[in-house]
């Protein structure tokens, strides 16, 4: 038995590895740049120049802190045309644009030149518009004010343009704009732009004329040593000892990283939310088993009776009743000033909070009204399913010889069904039990959303909406782990319930 358990735990490792990989793949393919998203609230885009340098630095630091400046995985499968250093380009929109260009032309050497010329142009535009704004203000012509506003923006937009004709027309437009204003006296300022623009034009022409599209059709494998996944697993210190880790200690040391949305450790958020989901699940499971086993056994014992038929119908209805509909109906009935307002509608405790010095009994008294409706919703659907499973299992058992023997011996029906039958009918019920473990982590997203329970459900929902991928990866991995634990527990319970089941190989 022990050997079997150990072997099962060993199988956990590759499975968890695959699950975390799936979550990782989802997270890197998600649209949007988490760092940009974090800064989006603070300031719009990279256009405004005043705090630009400081902001870029802050962004870089954050990127480093979150490990986003690293390659994604130990290796990537790309095309020959893509360089292995593309991950070093920090801005995700630039990177995507470059990837498009690479996909069209397949000649990184030239595209790199072109990209550099664009960056030079952008930097010049950002610095110039700031430094020369005084100069420009001296020439108080309306048209020059337009330069100040639009010029930098137009230069920057080139970094996000991938279509050849569009690029050319944009460069041309910028050049004509420069030409139009050169007569107005800001020659020095515009000349520099003219040379930069023509450099851009030339480099892009080089990209076009030296296209090596065939390279995009050849696959290439690139290896990276230190990467995001490695960092996620082992932290950013020494991978074996964990020494010298600054920002993250790695999942293997119990650190799920820092949330993109709140900048707080994911472990902290989970630690706060998990107890709610876990305790609700545990309570509802306990309730469901306590109620469903007698119902199932009774229904099977009195097969075809009124109780059997009516409970079948009711349970079937409950089974098909969507829990969010049931929840809304309950809220509408018991937490609605129009009908009955005896139970609170939202949350898990009074809005004012529970006083610090409250005794355990007082705390319980303040909390339980909030838990009644959620518990009913959590319980009823599994209750229906469990009772039905129990009934079928008991029916199958009750026609077996040993049950008939028990009857022939004249045992009471309670003794027959609960002592002799139950243990043998437990197997399907145990199978169901295994499925409950992951629920404790995932929670019931919908029900927790509906009742405003601060469990894992709302956390998952906000994590998905804010693209907070460290959180999502953590939930995936944890619930995968719990599922595996569930299977293992079920297997052990099988062996306990039915001694004939043995996992040793002999």
């Amino acid at each position, binding site marked *: 038995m022990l050997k079997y358990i150990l072997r099962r735990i060993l199988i956990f490792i590759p499975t968890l590895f695959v699950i975390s990989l799936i979550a990782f793949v989802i997270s890197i393919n*998600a649209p949007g740049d988490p760092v940009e998203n974090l800064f989006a609230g603070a300031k719009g885009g990279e256009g405004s120049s005043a705090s630009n340098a400081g902001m870029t630095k802050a962004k870089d630091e954050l990127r480093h802190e979150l490990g986003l400046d690293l390659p994604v995985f130990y290796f990537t499968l790309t095309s020959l045309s893509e360089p292995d250093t593309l991950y070093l380009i920090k801005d995700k929109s630039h990177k995507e644009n470059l990837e498009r260009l690479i996909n069209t032309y397949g000649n990184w050497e030239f595209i790199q030149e072109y990209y550099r010329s664009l960056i030079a142009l952008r930097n010049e535009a950002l610095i110039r518009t700031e430094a020369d704004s005084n100069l420009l203000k001296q020439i108080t012509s309306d048209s020059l004010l337009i330069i100040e506003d639009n010029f930098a923006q137009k230069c920057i937009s080139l970094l996000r343009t991938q279509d050849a004709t569009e690029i050319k027309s944009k460069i041309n437009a910028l050049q004509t704009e420069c030409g139009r204003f050169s007569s107005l006296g800001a020659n020095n300022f515009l000349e520099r732009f003219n040379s930069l623009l023509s450099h851009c034009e030339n480099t892009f022409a080089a990209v076009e004329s030296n296209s090596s599209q065939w390279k995009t059709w050849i*696959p290439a494998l690139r290896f990276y040593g230190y990467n995001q996944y490695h960092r996620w697993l082992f932290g950013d210190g020494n991978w074996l000892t964990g020494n010298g880790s600054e920002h993250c200690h790695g999942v293997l040391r119990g650190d799920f990283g820092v949330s993109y949305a709140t900048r707080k450790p994911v472990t902290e958020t989970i630690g706060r939310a998990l107890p709610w989901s876990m305790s609700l699940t545990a309570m509802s499971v306990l309730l469901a088993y306590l109620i469903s086993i007698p119902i199932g056994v009774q229904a099977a014992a009195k097969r075809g009776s009124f109780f059997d038929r009516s409970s079948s119908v009711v349970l079937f209805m409950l089974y098909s009743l969507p829990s969010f509909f049931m929840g809304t*109906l309950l809220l509408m009935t018991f937490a609605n000033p129009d009908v009955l307002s005896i139970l609170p509608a939202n949350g898990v405790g009074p809005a004012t909070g529970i006083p610090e010095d409250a005794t355990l009994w007082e705390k319980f008294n303040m909390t339980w009204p909030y838990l009644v409706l959620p518990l009913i919703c959590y319980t009823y659907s599994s209750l229906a399913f469990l009772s039905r499973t129990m009934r079928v299992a008991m029916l199958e058992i009750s026609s077996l010889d040993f049950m008939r023997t028990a009857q022939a011996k004249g045992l009471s029906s309670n003794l027959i069904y609960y002592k002799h039958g139950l243990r043998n009918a437990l197997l399907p019920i145990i199978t169901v039990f295994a499925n409950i473990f992951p629920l404790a982590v995932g929670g019931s997203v919908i029900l927790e959303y509906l009742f405003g329970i601060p469990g894992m459900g709302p956390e998952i929902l906000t994590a998905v*909406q804010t*693209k907070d991928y460290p959180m999502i990866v953590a939930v995936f991995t944890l619930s995968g782990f719990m599922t595996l634990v569930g299977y293992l527990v079920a297997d052990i319970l099988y062996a306990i319930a039915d001694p004939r089941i043995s996992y040793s190989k002999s």
Partner: protein
Amino acid sequence: MSKEEKEIQTVQQPEFSFRKYSWKQFKRNKPAIISLYVLSVFAFVALLAPYIANERPLYAKYKGQTFYPAFTSETNYRFQDPQSSDSINLQLDITDWKRLEYESVFWAPVPWSPTTKDKANRRWVGPGDPQRFITNTGDTLHMPSRFRHRLGTNESGEDVLAGLIHGTRISLSIGFISMGIASIIGLFLGAVAGYFGDNRLQLARGRFYMIILSLPFAWFYAFHVRAYNLTDAMGESGFSFLIALLISIAVFAFVIVLFGTIGRVISKGNFLGKQIYVPLDTIISRGIEILNSIPVMILIISLAAMVKEYSIIYVMVIIGLTSWTGIARFTRAEFLKIRSMDYISAAQVMGFPEKRIIFRHALINGMAPSLVSIAFGIAAAILIESGLSFIGVGLPQDVITWGKLLNQGRENFHAWWLIVFPGLAIFLVVTVYNLIGEGLRDALDPKLKR
């Protein structure tokens, strides 16, 4: 008649067909049969939704002209008024149809579209409440009974009944298409895993390695090279994404077949030519286990967040891609039984290719238990979809679904009609599918026949 002939006849006489037998069993199951009828009513409503609930009349005679506004794809009608000979332009999407003065008119049974905002009846007007109608002259009247909102309105004045009718379409099609995808994957993988097991599929080592080697290449050509075709199609519409995805899958298959053919050529000699077993069952079962250990709801929510904009097709594809494991498991178990049956051995002895044995001989017989799983799966898919739209994930803003209506009711418990009717609709459809599933299970599983 000789004795022998008689014997042959008696042997041939009871023409036992499992399909006929199961159908007979199924027909005995009253709730399942009733459910089939109810389901066909739902299907009828779903198919004809635009003609059952539409703000445009089905037929209208207006100023001497005859129109069929509900059936047309035109955007406007231009014609001359016979009396004043003014030119009239009726723009189909913004015309207030109920205030035109028709010579004769035939309305749809529910004269509202799900997205028409009835300004006179905004802010939760119930089925029994007084409803208002504003005439051309600006007078407020009682709503003519023909135009009443039979199941009330929501906050912005949209008709709930019309929303329910159009929501039927979404729910049923989500159930069908996502389970269609799931059953294709599940049946295929389950059949292959069960039929071949771990020690039945023999391949020359060279070919086996070539196929393994082909996987990264297939991925590269199908998804890396075509990445921009896929993302561009995703930006365009759900349908073009589906097409692009199918092309990618075809490319994937093609590369594997190509490498397999090369592998066949190089599989010569002692080492490369040696036949080895492919542990297909282990691979597929492990895959199912892994997929099962990810909570479906979380997986679906995070996948739904990955797409740039919400669309029904993505929801269908996502549900389909994540819910095939049950079907695969049932089919696998069935195939484990079938593969040692006589008729399969007979087919093998006759030298039929494995492909033909699996998909033409065995699959028909092995499909039965997965039918049960598919019926329950449709119910589950509908539940997932309505749950997703209940929490506001996955479906575009302008599509009305049952889950969304139910969620709107949450904002105002006074508006019970927004909670009860959509909830009942979901409940009814889910029950119907569950009953059909139960009926199928009882009919297909002779062990339960008592």
